């Protein structure tokens, strides 16, 4: 058991190294570099840029170094805890990310709670009352939720919130609370805006989670131990929650590995459409402008979180499911 965990942790290092190389390479792969996007953005406004100036700037940002030198500089900084500076924002990368982290995590956790709180009970209900009217209607809603693209749903809800509730379009705060310090009024304002991203981000995962829970639970309910327990007269609810539901939640737990990076990355498209200052749009912009230190650091951070998340879900599974525990012990 202990060995297994140690082995898992040690494997993280080479994994991350490969990821860092790949992500750096991918960011560098498109034609041009940060300067080309900087200059083309300037040209859009009508400014003219001197060819000599471009060369001088390229030297200054060390963009004319070979790629492995640039990689080495970046990864060396990372190991010393220096994430580098964003070209575009001219700010340290850490400052940019942490500025947006709070809101991102708030939205993601709110979404997660929403998803679990609706999907698990509905999934259980649907499984227990299979082919009932309730099951059918939840199935229908679930499929609709899966089918609607997030950005469209976001636009519709944005229209609704503006037309019916008169809230300002996009963002998480009304203009008057934007720079205000935290107060009850600001919190209520946040709640007023928060429901849209939570519902938009939540529906599709709720829908799929309902299906997963329902399917798994149905499998479990057909097993003989359930019948036996029933025959022995175990109360319905207690029987349901103690055995079949616990097993049925296995896939949910193994998904936690993917949930962790999602909490930090935010949903990019939805955030862009809704104008929410999470880390998602920041990453998108950094990638588009080849702001390589910012993009690279964010990709790295997401990878670390994925790896850690996978580890956590493994550990949770071991704790939750005796079968996995015993299998590993017997080896």
């Amino acid at each position, binding site marked *: 058991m202990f060995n297994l965990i140690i082995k898992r942790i040690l494997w993280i290092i080479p994994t991350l190294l490969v990821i860092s190389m790949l992500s750096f390479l991918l960011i560098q792969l498109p034609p041009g570099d940060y300067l080309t996007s900087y200059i083309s953005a300037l040209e859009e406004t009508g400014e003219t840029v001197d060819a000599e100036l471009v060369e001088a700037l390229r030297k200054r940002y060390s963009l004319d170094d070979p790629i492995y030198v640039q990689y080495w500089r970046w990864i060396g900084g990372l190991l010393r805890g220096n994430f580098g500076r964003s070209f575009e924002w001219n700010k340290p990368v850490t400052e940019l990310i942490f500025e947006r982290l709070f809101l991102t995590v708030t939205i993601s956790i709110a979404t997660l709670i929403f998803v679990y709180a609706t999907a698990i009970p509905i999934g259980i209900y649907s499984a227990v009352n299979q082919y009932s009217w309730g099951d059918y209607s939840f199935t229908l809603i679930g499929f609709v939720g899966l089918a609607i693209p997030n950005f469209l749903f976001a636009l519709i809800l944005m229209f609704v919130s503006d037309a019916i509730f008169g809230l300002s379009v996009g963002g998480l705060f009304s*203009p008057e609370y934007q720079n205000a310090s935290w107060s009850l009024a600001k919190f209520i304002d946040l709640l007023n805006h928060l429901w849209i991203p939570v519902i938009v981000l939540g529906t599709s995962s709720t829908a799929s989670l309902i299906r997963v829970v329902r399917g798994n639970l149905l499998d479990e309910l057909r097993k003989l131990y359930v019948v036996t327990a029933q025959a022995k007269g175990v109360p319905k609810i207690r029987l349901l929650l103690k055995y079949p539901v616990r097993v049925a939640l296995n896939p949910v737990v193994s998904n936690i590995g993917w949930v962790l990076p999602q909490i930090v990355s935010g949903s990019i498209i939805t955030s862009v459409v809704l104008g929410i200052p999470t880390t998602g749009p920041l990453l998108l912009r950094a990638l588009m402008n080849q702001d390589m230190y910012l993009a690279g650091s964010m990709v790295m951070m997401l990878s670390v979180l994925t790896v850690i998340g996978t580890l956590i879900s493994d550990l949770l599974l071991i704790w939750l499911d005796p079968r996995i525990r015993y299998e590993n012990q017997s080896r």
Partner: protein
Amino acid sequence: MKTDPSSITPPNPIFKYLPTTTSIGLRFAGIIFGLILLVVVLSRLTWTLGQWGQKQDLQRLAATLNTSLQQSGLPNGVVNSAFKPLTKAEFDQMEGGVHTVGEWTGEREFNQSPMLDRLMLGRQSLPPVAERLPADPLVIYPPDQNGPYGGLWQRYGTSAPDVGIFRARLAYDGLVRWGPMAQQILPNLAVKWEIADEGRTYTFWLRRGVHWSDGQPFTVDDILFWYNHVIRNPELTPTTPREYQRDGTPMVVEKVDDYTVHFKFSSPYGLFLKALASGRSYPMVEYPAHYLKQFHPDFVPVEQLAKMAEKQSFDFWYQLFEDRADWQNIDIPRLWPWILKVPPPAQQILFERNPYYWKVDEDGNQLPYIDQMSFQIYDGQIINMKAMNGEIGMQGRHLQFDNFPKFKANSKNRGYSVRLWISSGGGSALAINLNHKDPVLKSIFADHRFRKALSHAIDRRQLNEIAFFGIAQSCQISPPPISPFYSAKYEKAYTNFDPVKSNRLLDEMGLSQRNKDGIRLRPDGQPLHIRIEIASVFLSTPMFELIAKQWTAVGIKTDLKLEARQLFYTRKSALLHDVGVWGSADELIPVMDPRWFFPYSAESIQGIGYARWFQSNGKQGIKPPPEMARCMELYQQIERTPNPDEQVRLFQQIIDINHQNLWIIGTVGRIPSIFVVKNTFRNVPEVAVSGWIFRTPGSTAPECYAIDDQAKSEQSVLH
């Protein structure tokens, strides 16, 4: 160990999961049938709704366009002509509606914003307003009314660097400024100026006693610091901008006294004043010497600077210096009407009034009227929605012309108006790469008949209908009618749709052989195939799809490639494109940026190789053909001529050569620029001239804009 679940009857059937086998099949069929029905109904519904919506859209579009055309109550029916470019005579007759400037002659009795009264009652100690203002403050006569003070101006940007246009387009405080109608250059930090020695010496007299926003005096020494220690420092400015040098010799900046400065050039320079009015004089007053000296190696030991830089995680001292001089620094003193209070990366970037601002209105009220300006960061689409929702104070940036009908439709309910300002440019340019790497294509492109044939092959009326609701004008890339450089002949040259003539020209060129698909064959027997490349910033791609079709119709197989602007940039720099598309460049004053009249800079994508030759005085690049070289010569002559009329005369010759050669193919243009203005805003002109070289809305003096909430309540009573 398989058990048929249906064979076991639980003692107490609490779980209804055990359906009989027959009902499974039945229900399955039922579900499938239901789903099919749902799909059919939904698709039918969306189809009908879509049709209906389109019809509604078209009807609404027509209605809004009509009402906007019928609107009256404006001087000389300006809105009527906003879609039809004004002629020079009509334009000159327009009066009023924009601000004018003057000098303060009255007693030194001045008023300030109540916000500053409150601040001075509190902890902050400020000298009285009369002491903060210079001896000779600039007077701005607002177009509508004086004041009132106060309010927050809400604007939006797409990123923090995008908000940086504040310094150019909203502060725009250099020595001189362009006027709101772009016809004259107005005094600003300079009270007056003089051009001597046939344009070799420019003398500027500055306002006496202007203060930086921290109360320190602004003098010629600050300009000297900027020139000697920033522009002439090779690490801060690797190459001296073209406007500050003549034939490779940098200008000399001389201090006469604290408020008089000479700019001296080695040879006559006729465009310097215009360059200063556009973009070259506000950077020179953005470097307060008393603050920035502490970050400069000419004043502080380099080792000490290196340590300071390292502490802020910079590698070099100049990065620290640039960071301190950047607009995002809240500690640096400024001369702007509003100074930065809440810097990025905040979601809402806030500017607040500068208590030392050096302009007043005729009643002696210190400007600006508006206390605060805020920029929120959103995606461009959201900004357009914010505009439709009436959440914008006054803004034109990021608003898309395609949305004009929607802006118009919402304006009544949401309490704002849509202003159409005269644009200084003229639509998109199709630039054929004269420096193409393929020798066969290059020789075809070099033939003026080919370019004229392509121009005649375009049905501009159709483009206009598709992309601009039919309100644009067919034109080559040429100065608009209100420009002193206007040429009616060149504006409309080769713009009529004439496929017969187009085919004839191509046949005459020797491209008469065609393959079985009707595509003309090149001299080497290959089918003639060209590609239009567009950077994805351009939104009206349907227009270029049409052009590709129309060119294919005259036997030149054309396709369209949309690419990320970085890729576009890389490809054009490497001379890899066949035909590139880019917007016009303020042809109203074409001498400022003549990129479309001959290969002038790296943005002249018709001949970047020639442009390199021009920029390097023949040392690099490709030698241009004689007519093009003649244009370059004429332009250099203009650069040496301070007399504006002589500049116009010489530029007409450049236009004539363009008329013969047609190096650039124009499409449709003269589209007005859209601005959305809240009804509470005062002193925003109904019509002004808009363009990058005038830094609009900077040229309309945003410091005299005011927010009048009284007016709002009156209007809501009316509706």
